């Protein structure tokens, strides 16, 4: 028995010396040219796949991914943030991306054996020690699903992911980067190709755009997509974009009517004592002439977008500019029906005549 203890101790000492030598003398070759030792790749990959399966949300939490607007939003973000490593469908990638270890899987291959809930987990969390980053915002899940919707459309080979052609000509006054950085989603005329998930810009003031882009840039306002888009903007670019956006003429949209619209109008213009909801119109219009330009005007804004932002405020998942605390207080008394009615009302307004 005694010789066994002795032998174990000796081997443990030898093992420790080797381990210390490997770490401190740099004996292990970390070169990405050298593949892992035999078996290590298998261990890592199997661990990864099982970890994703264990942690992914339940399939019942997957929202409707066939929404074209969601798919195109996801595609534009993919284009900006993911395509370098994972390639556009059917296209090749740079030799640099191919020289990574592990080589990032081509997106059209990778989606084949994952379900949407798994893809969601991977996009949101990234994968440790593989080069796959986590989603820039840890608070919001809704914009992660946009990317998943795009991946799923590629997997199912639907043509929903194909790029729509902008009908609006790019105005010549657009700043140099606007077309590259903003217009791909928001369109050159600011109307976002009528994508209901993307806010229209033509109704926004210079001050609000500037404050919001800065809030995205410093992380005060959350969105994986917009934080990616805004994180490297310079003050000069933000100024230029804000100038350009505020110079857009608000486009006319047809006013709509409806039952929910009336309820929304009542709530927006008078507030409600019982639930503690202040009157939205005091800051957000319509009739914005005397309002602070730091409050976004909402007449004609996308219904889905307004509804989503109100939900995020209510769930305390949305920050914003320095005035965000006003909204956190204001949404406290809203229930889901109120939110839907307010979104219906504001989206029903024509920004050119109601202001």
């Amino acid at each position: 028995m005694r010789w066994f203890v002795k032998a174990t101790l000796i081997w443990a000492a030898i093992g420790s010396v080797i381990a210390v030598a490997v770490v401190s003398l740099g004996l292990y070759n970390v070169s990405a040219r050298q593949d892992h030792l035999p078996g290590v790749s298998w261990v890592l990959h199997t661990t990864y796949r099982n970890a994703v399966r264990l942690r992914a949300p339940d399939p019942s939490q997957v929202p409707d991914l066939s929404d074209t607007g969601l798919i195109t939003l996801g595609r534009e973000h993919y284009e900006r943030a993911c395509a370098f490593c994972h390639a556009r469908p059917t296209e090749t990638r740079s030799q640099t991306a191919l020289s990574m270890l592990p080589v990032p899987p081509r997106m059209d291959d990778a989606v084949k054996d994952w379900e949407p809930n798994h893809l969601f987990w991977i996009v949101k969390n990234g994968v440790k020690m593989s080069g796959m980053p986590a989603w820039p915002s840890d608070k919001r899940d809704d914009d992660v699903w946009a990317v998943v919707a795009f991946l799923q459309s590629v997997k199912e080979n639907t043509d929903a992911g194909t790029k729509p052609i902008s009908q609006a000509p790019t105005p010549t006054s657009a700043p140099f980067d606007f077309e590259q950085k903003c217009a791909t989603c928001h369109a050159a005329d600011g109307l976002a190709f009528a994508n209901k998930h993307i806010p229209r810009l033509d109704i926004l003031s210079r001050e609000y755009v500037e404050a919001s882009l800065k809030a995205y840039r410093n992380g005060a306002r959350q969105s994986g997509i917009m934080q990616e888009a805004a994180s490297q903007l310079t003050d000069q670019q933000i100024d230029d974009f804000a100038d350009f956006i505020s110079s857009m003429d608000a486009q006319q949209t047809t006013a709509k009517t409806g039952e929910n619209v009336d309820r929304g109008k009542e709530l927006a213009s008078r507030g409600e004592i019982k639930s503690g909801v202040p009157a939205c119109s005091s800051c957000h219009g319509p009739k914005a002439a005397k309002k602070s330009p730091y409050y976004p005007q909402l007449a004609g804004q996308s219904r889905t977008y307004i509804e989503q932002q109100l939900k995020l405020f209510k769930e305390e998942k949305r920050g914003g500019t320095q005035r965000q605390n006003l909204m956190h207080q204001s949404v406290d008394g809203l229930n889901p029906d109120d939110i839907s009615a307010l979104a219906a009302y504001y989206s029903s307004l024509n920004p050119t005549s109601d202001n």
Partner: protein
Amino acid sequence: MKNVALISLSCLLLSSCSGVQSVLDTAGKDASVLAHLFWVLLVGAIVLWLLMNGLFFYVTRIEPRELSRRAAEALVIGGGIVFPFILLAGLIAYALSIMPDQRAAGDGVVVRVTGEQWWWRVEYDLGDGSAPIVSANEIRLPVDHRTEIKLGANKVIHSFWVPALAGKMDMFPGRETRMAVEPEKTGIFRGQCAEFCGESHALMAFQTVVLEQDEFEQWLERERQDAVQPTEAVPRQGEQLFVSEGCGACHTIRGTEAQGNLGPDLTHVGSRKSLGAGILPPTAEAFSNWTRHTGAIKPGVKMPSFAHLSDRQIEALGQYLEALK
């Protein structure tokens, strides 16, 4: 030395019995009846205490001898049952006889007070079918006149209490309670929420201003008017800011665009004796401080802080609000 300390301590305790929020330093009919009741009970209790202790002293020290069974039974039954019964029955009859007067209705203007977290919504109903005159955090009453007060609450229970004028009455969401007050002196008397209603319960106070009848009517007429437009440049800036920053989403200033009704009506806020429900003086500086540090001054308050505005803007708002006489 010990005596000096004792005397100063008693003076300190007694001094808290006078002042603007005292049940003993009364200024209203109902409160003086209650104070009278208090003194009667207090004197009665002192007399009883002296008698009981005198008796103990007598039977243990002065005349310590056994009583006969008869005398002992007479003492127990007489002193333990008959005497307290008669005394308590008398007191109950006296106290009950006071109650109808305490519940007596008022006439003239009806003041409707609603407890909010943590302030008081005040409406004066003239009873002539006109819209009530809305105010907040201050109640004005005519002297020597019984005024009806109708009480309600929003969300949680509060209690309405102006100790110098009358007893307290709870305020319930969804149910109206009532009381009446009959001030006998002019002056300013402090009221306080007397039912725990959340984190800033202790900061939910108000001033009651008792005026001569004609002064009260003049004041009511002024209170009914729209806000006066400021003439000086800085308060005018404040007026524009009040609209552009969206203050009107919650506050009303009659005669302007601001028509919100979640928070206190501010039409004549500069003429009130206090700000923030009895906790700050009504100065421009205090208005500015309040706007900047709402949550620090009144924890849990629904009004968000406007610290994002510049100092100059906050000052302009403060001067505007102070000018709303």
